[in-house]
């Protein structure tokens, strides 16, 4: 396990640059680069040893390069003190990085048509995925949504790697005005897509999963939930997920995910404990299920 598993490194910052409304940090981390598979994420310590900020910050991997034995890049928007601190890093600074974390996107065996749907900075994981799919001869189409033009993520690289790239913005300042799901059906039809990969905010993922179900094609979604550890020990990042046995369990986004099959995530019940979830208040004990349940729950 530990071979393919995550590693903790004090990595030296190679570059810190601005990309549209985002900051991009590239660190030298050969062991992480070599283990990484698309969909996985990093967690980064912020603030330094005597900081009042205790928790690591999770970030998706946006790019992996072979230089210096292997580098990984993550992009982020400054949102609070942790990302503000990261934005102030300079090359040669050392930062504490753990990764790769979580379950990667499953890749199709055959060269099928894939549409990749992303919202805002949540689109980051789609780029290494696109390259992996292309290497397998898959067709890749992008649908990228954002609040406004400056929040649209790496439009250029999207166009470069994909057959087509469709953009939507809430304010119409770039591409189609509206949500990604307003554009999705047409792209799927035109590209004859066989599978949808999506990441971004939960509500968007919910709409994408619904659209996929409606169009009757599989969707793989990478969820985001508040995470204290990122390694599976704290139980903070749970999402209601339906198991193969039809039983709903509170699954950990960090190790059981972040990638789940779209139809398995109960998006409407995110932020709740569904009454029929295993071990929900008033839930009736059923030894067998519990056993099976936990089997998978343990990841």
């Amino acid at each position, binding site marked *: 396990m530990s071979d393919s598993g995550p590693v903790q490194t004090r990595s030296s910052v190679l570059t810190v640059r601005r990309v549209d409304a985002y900051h991009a940090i590239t660190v030298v981390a050969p062991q992480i680069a070599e283990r990484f598979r698309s969909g996985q994420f990093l967690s980064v310590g912020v603030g330094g040893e005597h900081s009042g900020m*205790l928790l690591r910050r999770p970030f998706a991997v946006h790019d992996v390069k072979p230089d210096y034995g292997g580098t990984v890049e993550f992009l982020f928007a400054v949102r609070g003190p942790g990302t503000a601190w990261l934005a102030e890093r300079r090359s040669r600074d050392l930062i504490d990085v753990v990764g790769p974390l979580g379950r990667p996107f499953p890749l199709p065996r055959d060269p099928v048509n894939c549409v990749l749907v992303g919202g805002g900075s949540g689109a980051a994981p789609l780029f290494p995925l696109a390259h992996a799919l292309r290497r397998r001869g898959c067709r890749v189409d992008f649908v990228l949504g954002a609040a406004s033009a400056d929040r649209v993520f790496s439009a250029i690289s999207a166009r470069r790697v994909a057959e087509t790239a469709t953009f939507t913005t809430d304010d119409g300042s770039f591409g189609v005005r509206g949500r990604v799901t307003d554009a999705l059906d047409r792209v799927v039809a035109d590209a004859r897509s066989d599978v949808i990969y999506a990441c971004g905010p939960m509500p968007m993922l919910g709409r994408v999963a619904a659209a996929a179900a409606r169009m009757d094609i599989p969707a793989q979604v990478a969820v985001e939930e508040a995470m204290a550890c990122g390694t599976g*020990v704290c139980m903070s990042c749970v999402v209601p997920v339906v198991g193969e046995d039809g039983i709903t369990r509170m699954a950990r986004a960090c190790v059981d995910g972040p990638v789940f099959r779209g139809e398995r995530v109960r998006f409407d019940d995110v932020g709740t404990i569904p009454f029929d979830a295993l071990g929900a208040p008033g839930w009736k*004990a059923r030894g067998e299920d519990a056993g099976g349940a*936990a089997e998978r729950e343990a990841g």
Partner: protein
Amino acid sequence: MNPDMRVRLAGLELANPVIAAAGCAGTGRELARFYDIARLGALATKSVMLEPRAGRPAPRVAETPSGMLSAIGLQGPGIEVFLQRDLPWLRSRGCTTVASVAGSGADEYAALAARLTAEAGVSMLEVNLSCANPAGHGRDFADDPAEAARVVAAVRGSAEPELPVFAKLAADVPDPVALAGACVDAGADGLSMVNCLRGMAIDPATLRPVVAGGVGGVSGPAIRPIAVGCVYRVRAALPDVPIIGTGGVRTGADALEFLAAGASAVGAGTVNFADPSACVRILRELAELLEERGADRVTDVVGAAHRPLGTVQGR
């Protein structure tokens, strides 16, 4: 030469004093990806309950200054799965295991103890008393020495005599000594202190509690002085009762603080989230500090801070 790190907790010998605290070490599998968990002094399990439990809705955590707030709600698969799946795996890895138990009444705690005491691979029972007492009007068992004692007595009663039973105490009580004394009188072989303190974080944007449950538990370095104070006060009153000191340990120096206050072993919880290899790092740092002091044994520093303590005049 390296100091002897072995410690004894009520007849149980641990290879070293660093224990991964309950609910902060998962099933053991997660930390085993970062280091060999057999190197831990012990691993305390997420508190086991009779039935599977889904816990609280997300979001379950918030960051607070030098700490965190969490409201997990004891999510877990229940005793059956624990015995089928988690305990055998821990045993197979040679990891000394403290089984933490939680329930909604003395009978439930007793039933758990009865199941666990028979099992190979359970080296200690830790009674998590920070659980709502259905008869307590929203209070936990730990909030009332008499109620805590009833639970401890029930566990002690149904566990085999040679299996150490430790009572895990709360810190947000006025008189930890009274609580500790009640638990010891009820048969606890030792004390584990402290659990999270009750607290809340409110999002200044939404003006709503950040964690879904509203009230949660505060942990991390922020609470360390409170935890060290509890350990010191209890050790002063009950010098012969072994203590697992827990609360905000981040470094070997923090562990040393707890040992000096009177703990025989140290629990590390939240730090595992910030640093997945924290426990082995803390152990290494502690050994180095002891070596610098020229201590032959870790046990030499246990209780070192004790002098007759003046009365607290007020603040």
